[in-house]
C-alpha cells in the first residue's frame, strides 16, 4: 500500500467529478428534488377524499351523519346523488373515491332504538388509500353512534347509577401530527446516500474499463487494493458531504426535527457506506459498460427501496417477504436513521441494527474486493 499513490488517484477522481456537470447536478440537485417529491408530492397522508352522498333517508338524522363526515376535515362532498344508478358512472369516472349511502329507514330505526346500517362504496384501485378511508369512515360513524348512545344515557342515568365504559384515547408519540414528511425525510436521506455512493462508485470503475484506462492502470505498479481505495474513498467523501447537505436541507427548509444525536447519525452513515461502496465495486465487476452498470444498479435499487420499509411498512408485508427484508441492509440503516431522527434513541437501543449493518458492510465489501482483485489479476 502506497498512500501517495492512493491520494493521487483520489485527486484525479475528484478533478473528474468536478469537471462533469451532469454528475455535479446529480449530486447537488437530486437530493433536494427527492426531498421535495417524497416529502410533499408523494405524501402518504390521505386528505380531501372526494365523497359523493346518496341520502335515501332525507331526515335530520341522516343529514347530521353526513355533516359529521364533511366536518371531519377528511372528506369533501363532491356530489349529491339522486339514485343508485348514478353511483356506477361516478366511481367509473373517478370523480368520487367514496360513496356514502344512507338507506331509507335510517332515522326510523334509530329512533326505535334498533341497530341500523349505512353503506359506503370505496374505489379500491389504490388499496392502501381505500384502507385509510375505511378507517376514517369507521371513526366518524363510531363517533356519531357514541353520541347517540350518550344522549340516550342521559335519559337512563336516573335509573342506572353507574355505567362501565372503555374509551381508547390514542396519543401519538414521536410524530404527533402524523406528518408523512417527518417519516419520509429520514428515508430520503438513506436513499440518496445509498443510490449516489453505489452508482457513482460502480460508474467510476466501469468508465475506466470502457475507455480502456483500467488496462493501462493494471500495467502500472498500482496494486488492486490501492486501485480500489483510490476509486472508492472519493465517493465515501462525496457521500458524507451529500449526507450533510441533505440533512441541512431537511432541517432548515423542511423543518424536520432531529430528536437524537447528529454525530451518531454521521458515524453510522459512514458504516452504511461500507455496504454501498461494496455493492458499487461488485457491480463494476459484473458490468462491462456504464449502461450495464446503471441497469445492474437498479436491480439492487428496486428491492432495496421496496423491501427496506422506505415507503411500505415491513409489518404490512406477507410473512415470506418479511423474511426477505432481513437480507436488505438498507432496512437496518433505515431503522437506525428513523430511530435517531424521530425517537431520539442511541446505541443502547439500536445496537442490534448497528451490529447487523456492520456485518453486512464488512462482508459485502470483502467479497466485492476479493472479486475485484481476482478479475484484475
Amino acid at each position, binding site marked *: 500500500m502506497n498512500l501517495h499513490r492512493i491520494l*493521487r488517484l483520489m485527486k484525479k477522481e475528484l*478533478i473528474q467529478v468536478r469537471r462533469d456537470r451532469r454528475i455535479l447536478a446529480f449530486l447537488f440537485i437530486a437530493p433536494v428534488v427527492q426531498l421535495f417529491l417524497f416529502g410533499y408530492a408523494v405524501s402518504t397522508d390521505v386528505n380531501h377524499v372526494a365523497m359523493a352522498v346518496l341520502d335515501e333517508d332525507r331526515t335530520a338524522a341522516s343529514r347530521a351523519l353526513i355533516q359529521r363526515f364533511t366536518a371531519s376535515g377528511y372528506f369533501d362532498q363532491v356530489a349529491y346523488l339522486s339514485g343508485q344508478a348514478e353511483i356506477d358512472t361516478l366511481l367509473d369516472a373517478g370523480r368520487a373515491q367514496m360513496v356514502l349511502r344512507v338507506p331509507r329507514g335510517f332515522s326510523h330505526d334509530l329512533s326505535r332504538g334498533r341497530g341500523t346500517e349505512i353503506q359506503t362504496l370505496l374505489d379500491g384501485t389504490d388499496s392502501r388509500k381505500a384502507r385509510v378511508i375505511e378507517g376514517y369512515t369507521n371513526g366518524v360513524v363510531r363517533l356519531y353512534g357514541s353520541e347517540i348512545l350518550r344522549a340516550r344515557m342521559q335519559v337512563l342515568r336516573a335509573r342506572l347509577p353507574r355505567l362501565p365504559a372503555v374509551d381508547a384515547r390514542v396519543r401519538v408519540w414521536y410524530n404527533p401530527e402524523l406528518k408523512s414528511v417527518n417519516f419520509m425525510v429520514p428515508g430520503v436521506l438513506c436513499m440518496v446516500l445509498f443510490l449516489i455512493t453505489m452508482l457513482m462508485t460502480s460508474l467510476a470503475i466501469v468508465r475506466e474499463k470502457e*475507455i480502456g484506462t483500467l488496462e493501462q492502470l493494471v*500495467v*502500472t*505498479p498500482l496494486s488492486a487494493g490501492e486501485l480500489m481505495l483510490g476509486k472508492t474513498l472519493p465517493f465515501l467523501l462525496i457521500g458524507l458531504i451529500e449526507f450533510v447537505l441533505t440533512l441541512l436541507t431537511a432541517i432548515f427548509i423542511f423543518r424536520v426535527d432531529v430528536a437524537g444525536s447528529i454525530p451518531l447519525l454521521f458515524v453510522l452513515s459512514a458504516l452504511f457506506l461500507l455496504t454501498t461502496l461494496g455493492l458499487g465495486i461488485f457491480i463494476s465487476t459484473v458490468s462491462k459498460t456504464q449502461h450495464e452498470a446503471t441497469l445492474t444498479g437498479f436491480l439492487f435499487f428496486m428491492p432495496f427501496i421496496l423491501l427496506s420499509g422506505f415507503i411500505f411498512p415491513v409489518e404490512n408485508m406477507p410473512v415470506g417477504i418479511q423474511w426477505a427484508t432481513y437480507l436488505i441492509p438498507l432496512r437496518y440503516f433505515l431503522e437506525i436513521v428513523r430511530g435517531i431522527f424521530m425517537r431520539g434513541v442511541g446505541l443502547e437501543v439500536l445496537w442490534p441494527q448497528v451490529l447487523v449493518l456492520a456485518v453486512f458492510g464488512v462482508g459485502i465489501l470483502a467479497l466485492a474486493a476479493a472479486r475485484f482483485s481476482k478479475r484484475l*489479476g
Partner: protein
Amino acid sequence: MTDIAIDIQDLRKTYGDLVALEGLSLAIAPGEVFGLLGPDGAGKTTTMRLLAGILAPSDGSARVLGMDVFREADGLKRRIGYMPQRFALYGDLTVAENLLFFANIYSVSRAERLKREAELLAFSRLEPFRDRLAMHLSGGMKQKLALACTLMHTPEVLFLDEPTTGVDPVSRREFWRILYTLVNQGVTLFLSTPYMDEAERCTRVAMLNRGRLVRCGTPGELKAGMRGMMLEVIADPMREAKARLTALPGVHDVQTFGERLHVRLDTADAEAAVTAALDGLTLVSLRRIAPGLEDVFNALASGEGPS
C-alpha cells in the same frame, strides 16, 4: 542489462477450447524494433497482454529484462511500458494532468518528472496544448499523448499494440520519428501491426496466423523466402483478367491492389503463360516485381507458408 531483452519460451494461452496462442518462442535482443504481424485473431493482442503481465499464460514462460513476467511482475512493471490498442487516456483531464497522473502512479520524483515532461512535450510537439483537455485533441495527438504517458517513467522495454491503427498517414510518420528517437536512446520496442509498410520498418518481424508463429526473420529474409515469382498485371477488364489468372495452372493466388493485380506463380515460362491466358483482353502492362511483405503475408493468409 542481459543480452536478451525479451525471452519467450513455449508461451501458450487457451480460453476453454479456443487456442489463442500456440507455443510461441521468440528471443529479442536489446534495442531491437520487433514487429508482430498477422491478421485479426492471429493472437497479436494476446501475446502483448501476456508480455505486459495483464494475462496469465496457460503454459510456458516469458522473461523480460531477465525477470519473469508473471512471478516478478511488480518489479518489472516499473521498467516496461505498455500501450494498449485503444488510446487509454483521461479525456476529461488536460494533457499536463494526464502526464502528471501517470508520473505519480509510477512514483517518478518531482525533479525527474519535470525534466521528463518537458522532454516528452517537446518531442511529441504537444507543448502548445499542455492545458487542453485530452478529449479535444486530434486522433494523432491523442495517440502521441498516450505514448508520452507510457514513457513518463522511462521504460526500458516498450510494448505497443497496433499503435498507429486508425491514425492518419502524417501522424503515423510523426509517430515513427518518435519511436526511432526512443530506439536511439536504447529502448527495445515490441509492437504489433496489421500494416505491411510498418512491418518493413522493423529490424525483425514475426508472422502469426491463428495463434501460431509461421515465420520469423528480417523483412528481407521473409521476402527472400517466398516461393515462386511475382508478376504485376494491369489488364482490362480487370475482373475477367483476375478470374482467368486464378484458374491458370501454377498460380498460387491473385491479389488486387487498386487497378493492379499481383500474381504469385510457379510456372517456368510465366510471362508467356499469362499473356496467353489473357488473350482477347487489353493487356496494359506486365512485369516481374520483387515481393513485398504484403505478398508474403497474403501467401501466409491463404494457407501456403513460404518454403
